[in-house]
């Protein structure tokens, strides 16, 4: 794989990967794909060992005290890096958009949270908008459709960046859904607290995916991907589901989400 030359000589070099809980536990290949894309773009990638979770489960349940404690832990763990990059718009948005508001009554912590927020990014937006990557040298033979995950799209403005990079993947054609911007119904704990509503939402999403006749579904957030993969597979669909970073990093030949290892 090759990338285009850097646009600026002052771009961040020392990048910390925020792995995210789901990638860590369920799909490490997304983390390695992220590392590859960042290293190919000229970054030195570190994975701070004290990172755990961004705190969203507590934040969205209304447990502000726990959220603050976890945020403080994340702020400590990622001190000193030029950039913090997550293969997720949801976790990336938590760091860059929600942390500062947790410390309104603590100016010192607020300043540190704002400092972290200012150097936190979603992976694909970081590659395109900050590093100036405009193509990858990967190959993926198939018709893909791309789901815009909510936080990445509406909090971070991730929309064209993944499509631009997918456009440079050999053998890949993109087929848009009618409503790629409508939520898939995952919503973190929402999908188990309100399973019937979540199911209605992901059912609509899977129908939209099917109508594109694409053979592969991509997105930038593993939570949404697991939700949609689970629904498609329950319905007997043959659509394969992958994280966009895997395809961009040329790692699109391994078993898809929810598929067994090939023997």
């Amino acid at each position, binding site marked *: 794989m090759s990338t285009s030359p850097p646009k600026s000589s002052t771009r961040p070099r020392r990048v910390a990967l925020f792995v995210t809980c789901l990638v860590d536990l369920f799909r490490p290949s997304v983390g390695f794909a992220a590392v590859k894309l960042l290293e190919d773009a000229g970054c030195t990638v570190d994975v701070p060992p004290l990172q*755990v979770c961004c705190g969203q489960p507590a934040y969205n349940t209304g447990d502000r005290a726990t959220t603050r404690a*976890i945020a403080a832990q994340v702020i400590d763990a990622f001190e000193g890096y030029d950039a913090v990059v997550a293969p997720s718009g949801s976790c990336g948005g938590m760091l860059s958009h929600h942390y500062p508001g947790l410390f309104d009554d603590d100016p010192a912590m607020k300043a540190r949270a704002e400092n972290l927020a200012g150097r936190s990014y979603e992976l694909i937006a970081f590659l395109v908008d900050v590093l100036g990557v405009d193509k990858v040298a990967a190959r993926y033979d198939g018709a893909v459709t791309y789901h815009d995950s909510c936080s990445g799209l509406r909090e971070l403005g991730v929309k064209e960046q993944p499509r631009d990079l997918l456009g440079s993947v050999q053998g890949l054609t993109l087929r848009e859904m009618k409503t790629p911007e409508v939520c898939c*119904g995952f*919503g973190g704990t929402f999908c188990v*607290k309100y399973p*019937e*509503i979540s199911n209605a939402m992901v059912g609509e999403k899977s129908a939209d995916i099917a109508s594109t006749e694409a053979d592969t579904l991509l997105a930038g957030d593993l939570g949404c991907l697991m939700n949609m993969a*689970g629904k498609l597979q329950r319905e007997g669909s043959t659509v394969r589901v992958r994280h966009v970073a895997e395809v961009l990093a040329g790692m699109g030949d391994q078993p898809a989400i929810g598929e*067994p*290892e090939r023997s």
Partner: protein
Amino acid sequence: MESTAHAFKANVGHALADPNLQDSLAKLKVGFSERRRQAAERLPEFEALRDRARDIKNHTLAHLDFYLEEFERKVIGLGGHVHWAPTAADARRIIAELCQSVNARTVAKSKSMVAEEIALNEHLEALGIAPIETDLGEYIIQLRNEPPSHIIAPAVHLTKDQVADTFLEHHAKLGFDKRLTERNDLVAEARYVLRQKFLDADVGLTGANFLVAETGSSMLVTNEGNADLSNTLPRMHIVLASIEKVIPTLEDAAVLLRVLARSATGQESSAYTTLNTGPKRREDLDGPEQYHVVLLDNGRSSVLGTEMQDILRCIRCGACMNHCPVYGAVGGHAYGWVYPGPMGAVLTPQLVGVEEASNLPNASTFCGRCESVCPVRIPLPKLMRHWREREFEKHLTPKAVRQGLAMWSFAARRPALYRRLTAMANRVLALFGRADGRYRALPLASGWTRFRDFPAPQPGGTFHARWAKRKS
């Protein structure tokens, strides 16, 4: 109306199993959002107007007492009356007394969500005064004895066939005994039936989209013109409006009108925009002899100055529910009270109590689509999260959720322990899921596996375990 917000989960079950409702929602989801998108695109300054609309409402809320008193002074100067109603009961009593003062037998009502909020119709009926809904959608649901399911399209949950059956059932005794199938014929029949009711009404009652402080006017937008008949034909016109409807000037109204219709229905403006400024003057040929404005607080003033204040900017366009995937899945009745969708999920706990409505702010994925279309930029997900925080503080969060969260956060705050636990979970889930790559059922995750397979982890350990190996 009586709240069933506490029964949200049961309401959802009924809604998802109702094929007529699901048919209607399928149309709503595509129609409203597409029309709004086109209307916004046709107006280059639309985003800038949203900022101005937000600023106008913020300014007004910061000086609400001043503008309300200014409005009152103007209305009195015009020969009208202003009645302050701290609670729903006060508003009901004031309106009933006004109706009784002219021996009213019927009240022609133009659509008003605040009237729903104070359960006005039930109250008037109990006193022997017949409220007649004149908005077509409201008229349909009044015949069916149902509450509205949407703040601007109250009968949006019904199909045309259901309306045809309802009209046949209720209009046959008036001589209309043919079941109609064409939309236009249904509208014509309703218009004919309603026209006589307008002429017979003793009192006209309307809501207000805006109250203009500088002129003392109440402003109404409709697409049917029914409000204009409600407020010009009867002898008494009563405007029922909540306190946050006041705005400073007509200039401000012009800005808000430009975002209102576009956000609501995708129209450039609604078919009728009417200003009522006091009772009939000596030289006027028609109009009401008495003009009353009932200003309802019902808990709103207690929101001022709190983290929830932004919800008082709401201009009731319905865009948040039109774009909400949860509303789109279950419709308005599931929310259990007057205001559905994201704005309802924020407002209802305030008005009926968070204990009663605790589910509503939780039934959101925080997808943010509501905020992205709100004409006055209300941060609806943030306000819903504030409700979750209050529920957590009050120990209203379900016990299972609290316990799960407590266990998770114990581990999440201890990275070394968390690593060991995730490594174990990864090994177990990967091992037993190896053959299929996924689970069709999983203990403790039935909410997921009832409808979806659960992907097994990739074999080979967690990312952190593998990364540590790569580094060594």
